[in-house]
């Protein structure tokens, strides 16, 4: 048997003895080594049976006194370790800043606080302007001013246009809106029901037969842009600018086309059209309603003007770099 293995067996037997097992039980576990194990375990049992020596009380006291006397002599020689000074707990950044502010003179303190307030305010202003909320507010304000300006330009027929309602909505989807693109601003006019029955085109995919059923008809100006925001570069005049003007009602059209674009003017009523198109646009003018159209389109926009509503005179002075107007 390997001696190392026997060491382990002996140790296991001693552990069993510590747990209170009898010698016979322990030897029964290792019957092959019982002969060798027995004398060693007997010696171990004899050693454990030895009484613990107990020191005298006097000796204990004398020993302690000697120890304390030695300590006193060492303290006199300053031989002990000097205790490390206890550090106060570290103060935080806020505490340090507050302490620094207290140490400053009042003028400097005020200047510091003002600087902090200005920086904080600037940060919040920048954050607000970067967010979409600020855009909405600014755009709404701009539209409001624009529409107020339009109201003053209506002229003598403004009493008819007073029935028109202007509604801007970016937050609430329109119930029957065909071009209900999220985030897109809708510009629509709801008109008197009798006007729609006369010849208004249905918006979107609605069939013409269903138009007369509703009391009010909505004319949506889809993708209406107001000179800022998306696709602002279209106002350069290089794009194809298309005007669709279905003039069929004896009106006068003034179209100043000077830019080589294609104009489709289905003027069926012997009217006078003045089309000064000077920007390379394409104009489709199906004017069938006897109105007079003055369209001075000089900004490269696309105009779809399906004017069928019996208005006498419409002025579209679109010079502000908008992208596309659909006036249904």
């Amino acid at each position, binding site marked *: 048997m390997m*001696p190392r293995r026997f060491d382990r067996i002996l140790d296991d037997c001693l552990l069993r003895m510590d747990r209170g097992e009898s010698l016979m039980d322990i030897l029964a576990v290792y019957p092959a080594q019982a002969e060798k194990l027995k004398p060693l375990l007997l010696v171990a049992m004899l050693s454990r049976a030895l*009484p613990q020596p107990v*020191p005298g009380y006097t000796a204990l006291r004398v020993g302690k006194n000697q120890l304390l006397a030695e300590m006193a002599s060492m303290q006199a020689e300053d031989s002990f370790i000097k205790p490390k000074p206890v550090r106060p707990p570290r103060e935080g950044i806020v505490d340090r800043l507050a302490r620094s502010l207290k140490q400053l003179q009042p003028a400097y303190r005020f200047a510091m606080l003002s600087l902090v307030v200005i920086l904080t305010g600037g940060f919040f202003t920048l954050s607000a302007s970067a967010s979409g909320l600020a855009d909405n507010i600014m755009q709404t304000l701009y539209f409001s001013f624009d529409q107020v300006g339009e109201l003053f330009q209506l002229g003598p027929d403004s009493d008819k246009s007073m029935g028109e309602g202007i509604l801007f909505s970016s937050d609430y989807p329109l119930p029957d809106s065909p071009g209900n693109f999220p985030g897109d601003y809708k510009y629509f006019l709801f008109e008197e029901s009798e006007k729609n029955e006369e010849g208004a085109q249905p918006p979107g995919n609605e069939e013409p037969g269903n138009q007369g059923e509703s009391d009010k008809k909505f004319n949506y100006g889809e993708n209406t842009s107001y000179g800022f925001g998306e696709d602002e570069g279209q106002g350069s005049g290089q794009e194809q600018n298309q005007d669709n003007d279905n003039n069929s009602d004896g009106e006068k059209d003034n179209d100043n086309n000077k830019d080589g674009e294609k104009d489709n003017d289905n003027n069926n009523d012997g009217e006078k059209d003045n089309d000064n198109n000077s920007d390379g646009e394409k104009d489709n003018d199906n004017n069938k309603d006897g109105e007079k159209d003055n369209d001075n389109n000089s900004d490269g926009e696309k105009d779809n003007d399906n004017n069928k509503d019996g208005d006498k005179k419409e002025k579209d002075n679109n010079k502000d770099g908008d992208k596309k107007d659909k006036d249904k």
Partner: protein
Amino acid sequence: MDINEKALLYRAQTGDRRAAETLYERYYLDIYTYLFYRVSDKTTAEKFSAEVFVRMIRRLPQFTDTKITFISWLYDIARDLVDEKQQAYQPELFDETIQGSNQESQSKSANRSFKLAISHLNDQQKSIIVHRFVEGRSVKDLVKITNKSERAIQSLQHHALKSLKIALEREESI
């Protein structure tokens, strides 16, 4: 070494009397038992025990527990002390100072034989017999005290028991 003992040692190192007293009370019996079975004399063991703690307090500022535990360091001091003074003293072997000396004569005779036998062992074997069987320490405790591996302790206790058995047989034959 637990955190309380570390704190206690640090306080004693800085000259705290109360901490030094606590260390003395905690380890005196272990050192005394070890010395008693090393020198086989109660009075000498008491004298040596006091001397061990005086040496402890002198060397305590230099003690670091990175390499050795405190109890092991204390046993080293006791062993060095015995080695130093071995030539100087004449042990009065197995006097009647051990508790149980008033027991039966048979038991006295067994104790005397055992102490005579243990005196024939070398220092390592004596230490193992005292720590493992007299003090009743486990092998893991001995690993900490002696800074030896568990396997070495198992082998050492095997040889110590074998030597003690031979010594006992010799003493009984005498």
